């Protein structure tokens, strides 16, 4: 039986490490990256800060209580996407089978490349060396016969680690691994498994699969296989990935807002970003979604509207979003807004509504050409120019990819 050789690369404290590499004054110091100077949640923190108990998602006041000397940095998303893209390019020097999992994680299937480049361990160490030299940051790499185990392995030694799980080691390694350490087994499942007397992967693998299926349905079979360390999912490079099902943007606002005209201005900004990306990649969609998170951070809602026609013009998307907004009563000031377009039709070579409104289509095409050349929002709606200084902070979605429609320019 031939085993696969899969590498999982996990950048250590990625955003904070990029900041420390670029600014020597931050090195070896407790650093936390936040989304916006006026916002108060930690996006990620350096290992020095983590030693004090600073964690992702923590409020700034709470983080400062853990670590009074904590240095806060407003994140620069373009730095992170640039670095991530460069690292993925390095990975592709060794194999075309690279699957970007998120901005700081990727899988490589090296099975067919080992004869060319030598043992996987050498490739992993050279990759670590190249990343450290080029970007001044470290990563942890896991090598294993499948994606699930490679990811588990990369988590085993942080920061700057390399862990190899050879096929003959799988059973002994999994014997004592807590089930919650497996990617895909969440806290809720861990609680239910504990009630069944299962705390480790070894126990999960030995547990009667029939009982698991009775308790979890079809997921029970999958859990059983996870306990055994079996995962046949392939590494899927971008060009073989399924077409995206939606195009969306969201932003956390600099301050909570409640005036209708303020909300509409941000919706227009988001609609333009969604429309631009949809047009650039030749997709249009029939369903517009609006997401709103309130000032208390915890409450939010999401509504959608399906349109009679496929759209990708920014003002069509905007009008649908405003229609959704007008159908609800806002309960609190707004902290986050998001718009997405789904029900997509791919391969649109022409803008929709061409026959209905050729002047609008021509104007949009002209605007897109100018913005392609001089940058987003170089030419845009007058309403947005008036408030140029008050743009929200965009979040890098877990679905971000270094190229294609998922390559979102997040300033």
């Amino acid at each position: 039986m031939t085993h696969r050789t899969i590498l999982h690369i996990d950048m250590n404290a990625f955003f904070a490490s990029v900041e420390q590499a670029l600014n020597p004054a931050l090195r070896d110091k407790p650093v936390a990256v936040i989304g916006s100077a006026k916002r108060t949640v930690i996006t990620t923190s350096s290992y020095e800060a983590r030693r004090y108990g600073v964690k992702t998602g923590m409020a700034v006041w709470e983080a400062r209580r853990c670590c009074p000397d904590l240095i806060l940095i407003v994140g620069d998303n373009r730095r992170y996407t640039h670095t991530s893209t460069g690292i993925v390019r390095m990975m592709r020097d060794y194999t075309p089978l690279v699957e970007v999992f998120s901005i700081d994680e990727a899988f490589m299937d090296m099975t067919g490349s080992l004869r060319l480049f030598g043992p996987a361990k050498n490739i992993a160490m050279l990759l670590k060396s190249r990343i450290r030299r080029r970007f001044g940051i470290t990563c942890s790499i896991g090598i294993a016969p499948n994606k699930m185990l490679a990811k588990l392995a990369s988590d085993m030694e942080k920061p700057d680690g390399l862990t190899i799980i050879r096929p003959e080691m799988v059973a002994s390694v999994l014997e004592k691994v807590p089930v919650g350490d497996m990617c895909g087994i969440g806290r809720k499942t861990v609680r239910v498994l504990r009630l069944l007397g299962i705390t480790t992967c070894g126990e999960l693998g030995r547990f009667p699969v029939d009982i698991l299926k009775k308790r979890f349905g079809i997921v029970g079979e999958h859990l059983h296989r996870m306990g055994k360390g079996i995962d046949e999912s392939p590494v899927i490079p971008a060009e073989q990935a399924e077409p995206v099902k939606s195009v969306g943007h969201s932003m956390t606002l600099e301050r909570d807002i409640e005036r209708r005209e303020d909300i509409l201005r941000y919706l227009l900004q988001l609609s333009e970003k969604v429309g631009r990306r949809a047009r650039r990649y030749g997709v249009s969609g029939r369903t517009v979604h609006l997401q709103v998170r309130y000032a208390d951070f915890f409450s939010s809602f999401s509504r959608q509207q399906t349109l009679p026609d496929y759209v990708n013009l920014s003002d069509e998307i905007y009008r649908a979003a405003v229609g959704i907004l007008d159908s609800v009563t806002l309960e609190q000031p707004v902290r986050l807004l998001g718009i997405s377009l789904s029900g997509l039709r791919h391969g649109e070579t022409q803008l929709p509504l061409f026959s209905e409104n050729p002047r609008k289509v021509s104007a949009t095409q002209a605007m897109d050409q100018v913005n392609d050349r001089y940058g987003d929002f170089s030419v845009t709606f007058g309403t947005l120019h008036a408030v140029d200084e008050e743009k929200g902070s965009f979040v890098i979605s877990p679905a971000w990819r270094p190229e294609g429609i998922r390559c979102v320019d997040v300033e």
Partner: protein
Amino acid sequence: MERIGEPVRVAVIFTPGRNIRPVWFDWKRRKHTVLETTYSWPEKAGDKLFLHFAVVDGEALYELVYDTLEQSWTLNGVEAEP
């Protein structure tokens, strides 16, 4: 990373604890001073033990390999771009 695979002359310090530290090496009629060894790792290939060193000289990243059986050094690869 460009593959080289050339035998090279390397100056090395053997430090206590069986640690090896490359200090400089000759390549293309130039002496390259090692500023930092970013990573080092062993590789077993049958009876042979190779010691790999990823080193930088301020201009490029080099992979030096020491064949412990043959007691010879090879420059395996170089990455010169910034």
